[in-house]
């Protein structure tokens, strides 16, 4: 029997299931009317076991009976991903408890919140392809609930776009998975290797890039992100941009044949896409005035950087471990910093609190912004330098381009952060009426800030050890500080000009930029298609084919033939004639 049950009954097997199952059960409890009152306070703590496992990893466990052979476990990437995801989910959980304290629909929010958490945690620990895909789908569709929580028209619109893209993403992923399944005969544990040897490798890679690209916000497919973030409640958008976008990245790491074979053209593509995303994100971000939208665009640009890092990985299979380490570090840094920023946006009321809170609040928002802008001694600096180191390994042409673009993006991010801070702080003063942030919000935010400061340093993978020493050297300091100062200066300057003229420097681009033209195009197509269908349906070709109408015309004719025929046959002369006619026919037949 053990072949079927695998190590379900072993302690670590149960632990894994508990980790994944606890949020699920709580989500169900939150939805069920009678028990939801008890479920709510427990919500954030259900992710604690996940964090514990991240810290003390357990051996992998096999469940052959579960969904074509599920396998849960942690490797190095998984461990780091799990750590920052779990941490972020716990913080936003605590934050949400108090942030939505008097929101009537909070039970529904927590139900979806916990479902998404389960999905997110699940996909980090899932080793096999279908397990990963299962959690990915669960997370995607549960997140929909978070996005349209407010129920406003904008929320519904953002939700609709999100679902359409999610379904497309899901369909692409299914195809890719099926192809990989075929190549790797069934449910595959290490998809990366299999994809590298697979026959239709290019097609699979294209599907994977696009499928996970939608979730990770790669440029052409990022349109849902800037729409979703502003409408989602703050803890949701924090988790959305902090942890869930990273799921797309994790998907790339797990599925793409990184470190297996050198794929120059694919790496060129990723690099190009990544770099355009980095610059494009920031460019559009600068035109926004809504704090959350700005942060959304900054996430898009950061994800662009990570995509380029993957491009590097594709180019240099040998140095892939190093690139992997940088990527993990970068993801860790970005998720924590972005999470902190988003939570800060939710606490605008702090401005009216006591002096000390106001000061602490200002410093708190400044810190992650600096980290994002890769100010010295921050995790951002560590991540950015790591990326630069790695970029040097690339062949000549790409090396120059990359370093140049990286510095430019660093500058741009700094500018964006300054732009964000100016708008954010100015907005705080004007808007009063926001209630004081509750204690829960403060605690979770401070916890996150501590993580932003320390986590990157604590968890730096051993490959990047030498880098740490280098950072502390003064020469490096100057390199990064001038970028931050220049960015801040430019940001402040723009803020002052808009302060007076009330008009942005750059023309305002509506959020979801390229979506607008595409949407109008689709609407036209739909109108044309619908009228065509109506015309066809009007005539109902099918019924014509079955010729019901002609049968209807035929009936009276048929009826008259029948009646006339029967009457005429019934006359005696007719009978007699027929009688003898048949006789003669039979006679001829017999005699012939």
């Amino acid at each position, binding site marked *: 029997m053990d072949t079927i049950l695998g190590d379900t009954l072993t302690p670590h097997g149960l632990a894994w299931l508990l980790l994944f199952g606890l949020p699920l059960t709580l989500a169900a409890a939150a939805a069920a009317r009678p028990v939801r009152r008890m479920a709510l306070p427990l919500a954030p703590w259900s992710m604690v076991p996940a964090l514990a496992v991240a810290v003390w990893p357990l051996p992998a466990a096999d469940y052959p009976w579960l969904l074509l052979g599920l396998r849960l476990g942690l490797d190095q990437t998984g461990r780091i991903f799990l750590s920052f995801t779990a941490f972020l989910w716990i913080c936003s959980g605590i934050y949400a408890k108090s942030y939505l304290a008097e929101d009537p629909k909070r039970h529904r929010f927590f139900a979806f919140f916990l479902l998404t958490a389960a999905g997110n945690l699940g996909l980090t620990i899932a080793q096999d392809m279908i397990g990963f895909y299962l959690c990915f789908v669960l997370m995607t*569709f549960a997140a929909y609930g978070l996005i349209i929580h407010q*129920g406003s028209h904008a929320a519904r619109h953002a939700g609709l776009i999100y679902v359409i893209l999610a379904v497309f993403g899901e369909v692409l992923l299914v*195809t890719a998975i099926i*192809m990989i399944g075929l190549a790797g005969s069934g449910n595959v544990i290490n998809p990366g290797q299999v994809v590298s040897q697979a026959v239709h490798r290019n097609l699979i890679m294209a599907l994977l890039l696009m499928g996970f690209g939608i979730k990770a916000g790669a440029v052409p497919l990022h349109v849902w992100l800037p729409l979703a973030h502003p409408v989602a409640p703050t803890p949701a958008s924090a988790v959305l941009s902090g942890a869930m976008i990273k799921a797309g990245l994790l998907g790339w790491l797990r599925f793409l044949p990184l470190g297996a074979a050198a794929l120059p053209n694919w790496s060129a593509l990723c690099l190009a896409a990544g770099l355009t995303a980095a610059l494009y994100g920031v460019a559009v971000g600068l035109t926004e005035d809504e704090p959350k939208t700005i942060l959304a665009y900054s996430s898009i640009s950061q994800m662009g950087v990570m995509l380029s890092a993957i491009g590097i990985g594709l180019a240099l299979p040998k140095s892939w471990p190093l690139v992997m380490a940088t990527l993990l570090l970068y993801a860790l840094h970005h998720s924590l910093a972005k999470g902190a920023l988003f939570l800060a946006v939710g606490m605008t009321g702090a401005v009216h609190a006591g002096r000390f809170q106001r000061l602490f609040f200002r410093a708190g928002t400044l810190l992650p912004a600096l980290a994002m802008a890769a100010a010295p001694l921050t995790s951002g600096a560590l991540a950015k330098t790591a990326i630069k180191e790695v970029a040097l390994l690339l062949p000549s042409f790409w090396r120059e381009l990359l370093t140049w673009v990286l510095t430019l993006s660093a500058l741009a991010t700094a500018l964006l952060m300054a732009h964000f801070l100016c708008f954010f702080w100015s907005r705080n003063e004007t808007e009063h009426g926001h209630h004081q942030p509750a204690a829960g919000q403060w605690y979770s935010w401070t916890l996150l800030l501590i993580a932003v400061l320390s986590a990157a340093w604590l968890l730096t993978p051993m490959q990047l050890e030498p880098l740490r020493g280098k950072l502390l050297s003064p020469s490096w300091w100057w390199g990064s500080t001038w970028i931050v100062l220049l960015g801040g200066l430019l940001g402040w300057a723009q803020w002052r000009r808009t302060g007076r003229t009330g008009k942005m420097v750059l023309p305002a681009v509506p959020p979801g930029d390229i979506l607008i033209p595409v949407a109008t195009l689709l609407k036209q197509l739909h109108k044309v298609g619908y009228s065509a269908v109506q015309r066809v349906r009007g005539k109902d070709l099918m019924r014509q084919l079955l010729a019901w109408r002609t049968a209807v015309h035929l009936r009276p004719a048929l009826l008259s033939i029948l009646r006339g025929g029967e009457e005429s046959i019934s006359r005696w002369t007719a009978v007699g004639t027929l009688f003898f006619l048949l006789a003669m026919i039979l006679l001829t037949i017999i005699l012939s």
Partner: protein
Amino acid sequence: MTLHDWLPLLTLLTSLVTGLLIFFLAEQQVRLRTFLNMAGAIIKLALVAVMLWGTFHGQSYETRLPLLGQTDLVLRADALAMLFVGLSSLLWFLTTIYAIGYLEKSPHRSRFFGFFSICVTATVGIALAGNLLTFFVFYELLTLSTYPLVVHRGTPEALRAGGRYLVYTLSGAALLLLGVVWLYVLAGPIEFTAGGVLSHLEEESHRAALIAIFVLLVGGLGVKAAFVPLHGWLPSAMVAPAPVSALLHAVAVVKAGAFGIVRVVYDIYGIKLTESLGVTGPLAAVAAFSIIYGSLRALMQDDLKRRLAYSTVSQLSYITLGVAIVGPLSTVGGVVHLVHQGIMKITLFFCAGNLAETVGIHRISEMDGVAKRMPWTMTAFTIAAFGMIGLPPVAGFISKWYLGLGALQAGQGWGVGVLLMSTLLNAGYFLPILYAAWFKEPHAAWNEKGLKDWWESDWRLLLPTLATAVLSLTAGLLAGLPISPVGWVRMIVKQDYKLWTPFLGIP
């Protein structure tokens, strides 16, 4: 004649006897009728369980009754038969509970339950049939016993629907009879044997006759398997009461057609002969066209049950697609979809019935915010809808997974394309319903009395719905286990049809 020989017949008789007894019950003897129904269902489940356990251990059950010259009535419980019998007897048990609740105060209940049990007898008979003649006998009995159920309400449109249903099914049956007789004349009294029996005929230059017979057989079965040109009766038959459309048009009647095609292709012609005759191509084309056309028509329907009906039309052709794409994996996918689609679709129909009965919703436009009033029903609906779309945890994903793998393995890439196209279309017509139910504010008339007591609707309507929803979820989740539908089908394909190539890692 040991017990083994009588078990298939006993399973058949349990519902037949109860049916006949119920006919003679007076309308008001409700308790006795319910007892009879329940007893019949439970005994049948027990017998089926025994046979399942037996077949799992390689035991063979066969009843042979002399019917007509050399061919006699053969009821054999092989693995494929047990799959369908298990499905139909389990779902009959649930649907009986549902029907008792649904038809609480309506007239003619004795007549209804009588024909209801006879219809299940026919389905079990079809499943257990050992040769084409037995299959045809029960196939016809099914048509006859379902007609009174479709016209149960006696309203003019019910009669029109019944008339249309008869025209389609009887002409289909006529085609099937011609095919069966011609095959009998050509190949003598043949039985269903795994791997097909007709291979010896091929070289005797009967190719044209074999192809013609195949067309006749599949044409006849196609009516019940709702291939597109022949599907007209299914949507109009939705006028029947909910339990009828649930069990019959989601499980019994339509599956009989699909099951028949599986029998014809695998147990009579054999997969190699079908391929060499070159009929699999057009069959796959018809299946693909029905999948797409069914989903497209479903998009346009506002009436909930008609949309589900068109979705059945498209989902059914998955089975034929799986059969038409020659290969072990697509076979597994096709055959297992027979079970999965049954469970999921019956949940959807139960929910539709529940909505219609409790809050009087028939059209999708009236479904705004219904989840507030009936959360449990809508959760079941959501699980089943996700299953139909093919999202992982629910059973639908498993069959799509195998179908996709099979299509690629057989080199028919377009198969995957069709699957994806239909996934999108499924999402297209299921997600708006979920969206409307869960996220829109209720404004319809039924909303004024909120959720009073603990049960949102009659427990007899709710429990079966939840049971089937859980069933479809576990069928998806526990796909690895040998006793799950997929495991069972894998065993069939491995043992009976010896198609299983070692290359596949899946146990």
